[in-house]
């Protein structure tokens, strides 16, 4: 195991790179800002690789642990660590950051330094969320990450960006403030500890467990987002610039789901069992109802945003069936969704940059002018629909398999998503890409350039790799998921 504080590097390298970009890159010197940002993102990614290569798959506990006193007055520590659940998200986040910086390369022409800096800082803060083992540290990163996203949507977003930015910020702040109260409650009742791992062992009566669970649920459900608190997401996605949509879908949505695994299930296991019916019901509504909503969207970004909500419904469904297969399936689904939704938003961004429209009706016959793009877009649409051999299939299949064991009708309802997913993804693809060239604008389209091809190529590789050979991803999860289930299946009521 490495002796370097790798997790601190993963958090602070992007943040300091972001500050450096702000410091040197004025608007006059945009190329320098871009290069420096790319350098920071790549450096941030490279330091996360040893997390995977040096990971001990047999160990279900925390690895690469760092522990320093931060605020002794309240016993708050700078306590970091990753297990098989969080490790992959750190790497995914660092990877997506490179994609995002590359995605904005030629497109963003105004306030280039601030744009890149916002994404780098955001990336560092989100790594902080995935690696924090201290409640306050987690909360601080969780809430601080709202600031860069607020600015990204508001400064570089579409026409209705102000409304979307406020909605995004206030919705998530509402959830996290209740979460803060839950943390304070745990702090007082654990005799003055903010350590998440201590809280996992803390016995709590059922009634307070239920309150804690509900506070967590509101915080994380907003972030995931689950039906019925999902309404901020389509607005945020539609208004955000391409990079913002990619980060939002690929990483930010995972924060809420990750919170369920780190807080709700192990800290309030009895309440989780008690209220699992509620979460499963909400998840199924997301899968089925939001799937239908996605079907009727006329705006491509909105369609993919709704499909994200439906896919995240699968994730929360998997968590609350309390079996290793379901939770691992949900985790695979989260990572896979990171690749696929990132790629889908990038594809839409590619078209938007050329035609300045996201309306499906404005397109048609794109394959004639952009064949390379059409091929890759096809792959991601198929993956979004859960085609076997793509990563989209693996997670959904595992969750459905676990659901069949759990309850046939839940499995039945969940499986409709495969049909709905195919319907909305492929129907959109058909209307946009196939057919005659719809109008003169489409006729003038130019195919993707090398940069765009490289981005889509890398994402396509990841999607196929994970679809064909998911073993490296799942093997790191086993021990940690079993450890988690140990906590979840033992009652905390004494």
């Amino acid at each position, binding site marked *: 195991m490495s002796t370097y504080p790798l997790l601190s590097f993963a958090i602070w390298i992007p943040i300091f790179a972001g500050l450096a970009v*702000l410091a040197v890159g004025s608007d006059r010197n945009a190329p320098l800002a871009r290069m420096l940002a790319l350098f920071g993102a790549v450096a941030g990614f490279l330091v996360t690789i040893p997390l995977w290569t040096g990971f001990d798959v047999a160990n279900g506990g925390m690895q690469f642990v760092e522990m320093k006193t*931060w*605020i*002794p*007055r*309240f016993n708050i520590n700078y306590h970091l660590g990753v297990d098989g659940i969080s490790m992959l998200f750190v790497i995914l986040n660092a990877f997506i950051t490179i994609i995002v910086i590359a995605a904005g390369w030629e497109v963003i022409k105004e*306030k280039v330094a*601030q744009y890149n800096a916002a994404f780098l800082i955001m990336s560092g803060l989100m790594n902080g969320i995935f690696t924090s083992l201290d409640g*306050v540290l987690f*909360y*601080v*990163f969780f*809430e*601080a990450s*709202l*600031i860069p996203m*607020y*600015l990204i949507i*508001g*400064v570089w977003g579409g026409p209705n*960006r*102000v409304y979307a*930015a*406020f909605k995004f*910020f*206030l919705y998530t*702040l*509402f959830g996290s*403030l*209740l979460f*803060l*109260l839950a943390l*304070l*409650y745990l*702090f*007082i009742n654990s005799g003055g500890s903010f350590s998440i791992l201590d809280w996992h062992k803390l016995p709590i009566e059922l009634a307070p467990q239920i309150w804690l669970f509900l506070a967590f649920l509101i915080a994380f459900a907003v972030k995931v987002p689950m039906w019925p608190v999902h309404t901020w997401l389509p607005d945020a996605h539609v208004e955000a610039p391409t990079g913002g949509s990619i980060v939002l879908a690929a990483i930010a949505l995972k924060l809420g789901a990750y919170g369920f695994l780190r807080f709700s299930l192990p800290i309030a296991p009895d309440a989780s069992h008690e209220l699992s019916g509620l979460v499963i019901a909400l998840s199924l509504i997301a899968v089925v109802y939001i799937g239908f909503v996605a079907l009727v969207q006329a705006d491509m970004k909105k369609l993919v945003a709704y499909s994200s909500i439906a896919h995240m419904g699968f994730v929360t469904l998997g968590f609350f069936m309390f079996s290793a297969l379901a939770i691992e399936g949900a985790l695979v689904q989260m990572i896979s969704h990171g690749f696929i939704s990132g790629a889908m938003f990038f594809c839409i961004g590619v078209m938007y940059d050329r035609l300045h429209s996201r309306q499906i009706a404005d397109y048609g016959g794109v394959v004639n002018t952009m064949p390379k793009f059409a091929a890759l877009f096809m792959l991601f649409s198929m993956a979004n629909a859960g085609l076997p051999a793509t990563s989209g299939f693996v997670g959904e299949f595992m969750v459905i398999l676990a659901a069949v064991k759990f309850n046939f009708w839940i499995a039945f309802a969940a499986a409709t998503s495969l049909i709905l997913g195919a319907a909305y993804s492929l129907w959109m693809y058909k209307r946009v890409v196939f057919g005659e060239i719809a109008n003169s604008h489409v006729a003038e389209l130019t195919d993707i350039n090398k940069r765009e091809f490289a981005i889509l190529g890398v994402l396509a590789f990841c999607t196929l790799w994970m679809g064909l050979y998911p073993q490296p991803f799942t093997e790191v999860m086993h021990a940690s998921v079993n450890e988690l289930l140990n906590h979840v299946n033992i009652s905390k009521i004494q």
Partner: protein
Amino acid sequence: MFDNFVVPDFLPAAPEIFLAVMAMSILMIDLLVKDSRRTVTFALSILTLLGCAVIQLMTSSGEIIYTFSNMFVDDLMSDLLKLFLYMTVIVVLFYSRGYINDRPEMNKGEYYVLTLFATLGMMVMISANHFVSLYIGLELLSLSLYVMVAMNRDSVTSTEAAMKYFVLGALASGLLLYGMSMIYGATGSLEITAIAERLYGGGVNNTVLVFGLVFLVAGLAFKLGVVPFHMWIPDVYHGAPTSVTLLISTAPKLAAFAIVMRLLVNGLITMSADWQNMLIILSVLSMAIGNLAAIAQTNLKRMLAYSAISHMGFMLLGIVTGVVSGDARYALNAYSSAMFYVIAYVLMSLGTFGMILLMARAGFEADNIDDFKGLNKRSPWFAAIMMMLMFSMAGVPFFIGFFAKFSVLQAVVAAGYTWLALVAVLFSLIGAFYYLRVVKVMYFDAPEDETPIMAGTDMRWLISANGLAVAFLGLFPQVIMSLCAYALLRSL
């Protein structure tokens, strides 16, 4: 005739004496200074305050020392608060300098002298252990401020604000005095520690006492500016020249915290059940009215006035939760969190009003929210500073405002008032909206006014340091948190 006269120990009051002497000397010296050479007065005032800080540090013993027949107390809490007070007033003077240089009617020596006398008043308030010394300090502060608010004589709004401030302030002082007289009637003493002992012994007429307490709390509430005694705050903040608003919105909060501690905690702790319930009502109302009314404002000073009301309401939560059904285990935790909150608030308030002064120039006040439109285009650095201040005020990490809210909330939850914590966070959510709006105006909107910022170099550096301090202390809040806790531990 002088048989009973004991020469008091002057040392604990050395900073006050030094400041009083210096303020009067500056008043004389300034007569010889031409308007164009006002820098002399400014430099002398700064040196005086620095001198006070040095004397304070040298004379601080860490013990609780009473002097002037127990009218004056010097303890660690007062030392710490006074040091923050000097720092605050120094920053206020630096921020004000450019602003009053551009406005000839305010660029008078009296401006500095009155600031120093107001500071003296606050110092006496902080160290008061007697109703009379407390009242003298309060009046010295208030009278200086009334004049300063009215200093811009040709401005109708300033004059109106000064009138309102004076009339309502006099009323509040009357309430306070009336309450004090009742308590004197019940306990037979004006000395705070003696009152505490008398109450501890029992046998005091409770009806008269509670009657007095109500007036006392009302008077304090007025000085703190909490609902329903907040009416003066928006008008005075709005009407006063911005440099005076800066002073009113910062340093007196430290002094007000001190007199709340002296009167309610040191003096009337045995009646905590009574005054805590009153403060809960004041606190919840302040958070509600302050945050809701701030949303509707278009004037930044007025918005910050309502935000000040809500912040003081939040701070009171820390005072409310000190004693739970006779159990004082949480007292230190709660009171020190309130003290940390006040200090954090003063730091943030300095920065935000400082930003208004930075943007202002001759003939332009920059006090509308729309005056900050597109600041990110005009000056990305100062937009970032203002953004940090706004997020800090909203209680978003990594800024000091978050840890201020955090420490008060943990005290509230520890005392078992979970519902109160819930109310507090819900109103902070509402509060986040109007702070976000300022960020929105700076970052999302295009500038309407392309005039470059004309503030001097010292102002630019100082406000940058102020903004960075808000961020730095948000990353490392431990030092000030433990200073507050230690000072109160040695003073209570």
